Each structure stands twice: as C-alpha cells, then as structure tokens.
C-alpha cells in the first residue's frame, strides 16, 4: 500500500485514521486572560488557533454603535507561516476575498447564536490568529470562537461546533486534513448544539447531489462529538475555577 493513498482498501487514511475518526482535539480555555475578556487555544489535528474575544465593551467608533444589540466583529489573521510553505504574498492577507468571505460567514453564524440583544450599544470584537493550518480550518475557527465566547461569559443559545467532511469516491471521511482536502470534495458544517440544525454549510467542490445527505449525516454526528469534547474540556476548566472560587 502506498504511503500516499488517500484511503486504503483496508480502510485507513493517510494519517492512520478510520473514515469516521476525528483528529486529535485539544483545547484550553482562558489562555490569554490579560489580553482579552475571553480566550481559547485550539489544536484540531495540526490546526493551531488562538481566539481572543474582547468585549462586550464601549465601541470606539460611532458607526459600530447599535442601539438594539451588540455589534459583532470578527477578524481572522492567517499568519504567513501557518502553512508548510510560507505564504509568498507580499501584501496583507487580511484583505483577501477568501478571508473576507470567511469573516462574514463567521459573523453571520455567531450573530444568530450569541444573544447580542442583551448587550446594546456595545461591541464584541473577536480576533483570531491561525498559527498553523492543516485542513478544515473554517470548522476549527468556529470551535475556537465558541469556546472563547463562552469564556468571555457572553450569553449564547448553544454550542456551535464545526467540522469538515470529505467525500472519497463514495466514502465520507470525517474531519479532513489538508492533504485530504486537496484530494477530494469537502463539506464544512457548523452545527448547533446536539441538534440537526445547521448554522453554516459550505460545499466548495463538486459532489453528487445524491451523496450529500449521507455526508451531512456523518458531519452532524462528528460535530456532535466535537461539541462533547468541547463540553468536557469546558467542564474540566469550570470545575477548577469553581474550586478556586470556593477559596474566596
């Protein structure tokens, strides 16, 4: 079997996972307590992402002031060193359309999940730094934001968990890495809590219409598992804080 076979007849992927296995998922909460009101650090496979949430706080610009709800702003900084090959672009990556699209998608995802109406006349500023990327980045960003917003104590309806699923011939592969992402069509989901509701759905390459449903089902199951992993991590973190608080 070739080392570079995307999916071996034995049912193994390039990194040794089975089709329905997630990547390593590790997360820390409240990692940057000095710099932000809420923060998280997430490693989903080789994706390494820092998320900082600042606010809700007084907006600096009048245009950011909404009488009825908080203004949500998200900026994604994909560092030049985040990929194996350093990005050659000389200019600012922050204005690339791909990044702008991602930011808009993230804002619109969380606008419906955070209870922004509880924080009128304020701004919530989310700053994301992608230190390393290895596929399924949008899903990882969603997870990082969910955790950081919870850490900031911002009220929300439920977790949103993100994951990307590839379709290799007829086999869906859960939580794709960058090699898999390049080799096949992928679907990215943002799932609300333990429901079957999708906040975000993106398909960027051709997929047979009649396979889509199956891919979504696998993706939703995977996203639910990610929600549970986040919940477990959060509870562990919370227990410790509660323990500390009892010392007060």
């Amino acid at each position, binding site marked *: 079997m070739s080392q570079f076979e995307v999916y071996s007849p034995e049912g193994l992927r390039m990194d040794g996972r089975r089709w329905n296995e997630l990547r390593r998922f590790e997360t820390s909460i409240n990692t*940057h307590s*000095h*710099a932000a009101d809420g923060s998280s650090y997430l490693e989903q496979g080789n994706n*390494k992402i820092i998320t900082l949430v600042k606010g809700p706080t007084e907006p600096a610009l009048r245009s950011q002031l909404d009488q009825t709800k908080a203004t949500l702003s998200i900026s994604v*900084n994909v560092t030049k*060193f985040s990929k*194996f090959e350093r990005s050659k672009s000389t200019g600012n990556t922050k204005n690339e359309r791909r990044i702008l699209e991602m930011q808009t998608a993230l804002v619109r995802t969380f606008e419906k999940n955070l209870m922004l109406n509880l924080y009128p006349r304020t701004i919530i500023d989310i*700053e994301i*730094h992608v230190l*390393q990327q290895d596929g399924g980045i949008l899903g990882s960003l969603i997870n990082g934001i969910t955790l950081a917003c919870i850490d900031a104590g911002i009220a929300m309806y439920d977790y949103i968990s993100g994951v990307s699923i590839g379709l290799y011939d007829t086999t869906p592969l859960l939580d794709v890495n960058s090699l898999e992402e390049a080799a096949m069509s992928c679907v990215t989901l943002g799932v609300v809590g333990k429901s079957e509701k999708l906040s975000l759905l993106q398909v960027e390459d051709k997929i047979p219409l009649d396979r889509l449903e199956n891919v979504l089902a696998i993706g939703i199951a995977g996203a639910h598992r990610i929600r549970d992993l986040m919940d477990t991590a959060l509870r562990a973190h919370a227990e410790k804080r509660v323990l500390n608080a009892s010392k007060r």
Partner: protein
Amino acid sequence: MTLSVAEKSYLYDSLASTPSVRPDGRHQHQFRPIEIYTDFLPSSNGSSRIIASDGSECIVSVKAKVVDHSLDSDLLQVEIDIAGERDDSLITESCTSLFNKVLRSIDTKKLQLTKKYSFKLFIDVLVLSSNSYPVSLISFGIYSALNSTALPKLVSNFDDLEVEELPMFHDYDLVPLEVNAPLVFVLAVVKNNIFIDPAANESEVANNGLIVSWSDGKVIAPIRTIALNETNTKGFNPQLIQQGIKLVDQYAEEIAKALTNL
C-alpha cells in the same frame, strides 16, 4: 494608556527620586518574569512564544528556504505583524526596520550550504498583545526561536559550482542552527535615572527611552532613543546613555543565559 495627572506625578516622583522606587518594587536592572515556549510549530523550522507577566505576548516562527545566494544575498528576513496595528503603521514599520538592521550582526556564513546555495531564514513575528514598546519582547522571541531552529542536514557535496544540482538533504536528521542572535533592550530615562524593561505605566512617565542592542558579549549598533510617550518626552543627560550601555553590558549575558537554558 491614559493616566491621571496625580498618578503620573506620583510615578514620576517615585522613579526620579534617589534611590528610586519602581511601581512594582523592581531594581533598576530587573526584568519582569517571562514565560517561553519553543518549538511548538512542527511546520516551521523554529518557533517560540514569549509571554510577559503583564500579558504581552509574541509568537515567532522561523522558516528556512534554499536560495541561490548569488541571486539573493539577504539571508535573513524579518516581518513583524502587531495585532491591532496596520502593516504600514509607524510602530510596525519601525520595529521591522530595526530588526532587519539588528539581525545583520548574525554571521550568515552559518546558513551557507554549498558554494552556490544557502538557507534563507524567514522570521515572522506576531505580536498578539503588547502594553509597552514591544521590541524587547520581540528580540527575546527571535532569540529563542533561532535557538530552537533546526535545519535539514546536507548530504550532497559542498562544492557544487560545476554541477547543476540542488542541494540534497538527509531524510530526517536535523542540525541545530547555532547563531548568536542579538538581543534588544528598552530602557526608560526618568530624570537622572535609567531603568531596564519599563512597564507600561513607567513608560508613560519616562522622559525618554533608549534602545540598546547587544550580541555575543558586547553592545552593538543600533543604539537609539525612542519616545515612549507623547507627553513627558524631553532631552536627557548624555551620561545616561553610558549608564544604559553599562547596565546592558553588565546584565545582558545573564539574560542570554536565562533565555538559552531551556
């Protein structure tokens, strides 16, 4: 950071008096504690993350690329991104140009692979948050990142002027890069006193700032002044520059050792 007039005059008086009192009780030469994490980015050749006790944080990646050094003689390139600042903002540009200058003190011979090819190092700095002038933090970051950098081991011939071949590398053996990265210190001048590693509130009342670079046992160029705030900056006694240099001379070695002892 805006301080009230009363705060400023309290701080200024404390720092200007003899003996001086720093707001956190530090000695004139004492740094705030830092945390360093290195080598956490597997897709970079070297990486570091420095966190100061006030939450200032900076992440550095070192990536190497093989280049023909006759075509590209600039073997070290620093790019700095300060979160919340535009790429063309004054602070970003001045830090970038400072470090591109400071790093010239590194002997690039160490990067040479063959007669034709060298490694070119791309040093990317991301300042996640900073409360005071971040150059010290950045220099510690670059220092640690370069210290943690390991490059592929060359297996092909050194003399390749005649052969049309790219250098070949060992499949997995890496060689640690051994360079003497320079350190950059910020000092704050308050009246007739000078302090290493000024905190944000100290910077706010400083009469002037001094940037002193140091490498391999001695103070090197550039040494320059820097206004640390917009309200209190004024001229200072030239002897303070000597004092500053002396301070750095005296303690830099210890810092370097502390940063190296991983």
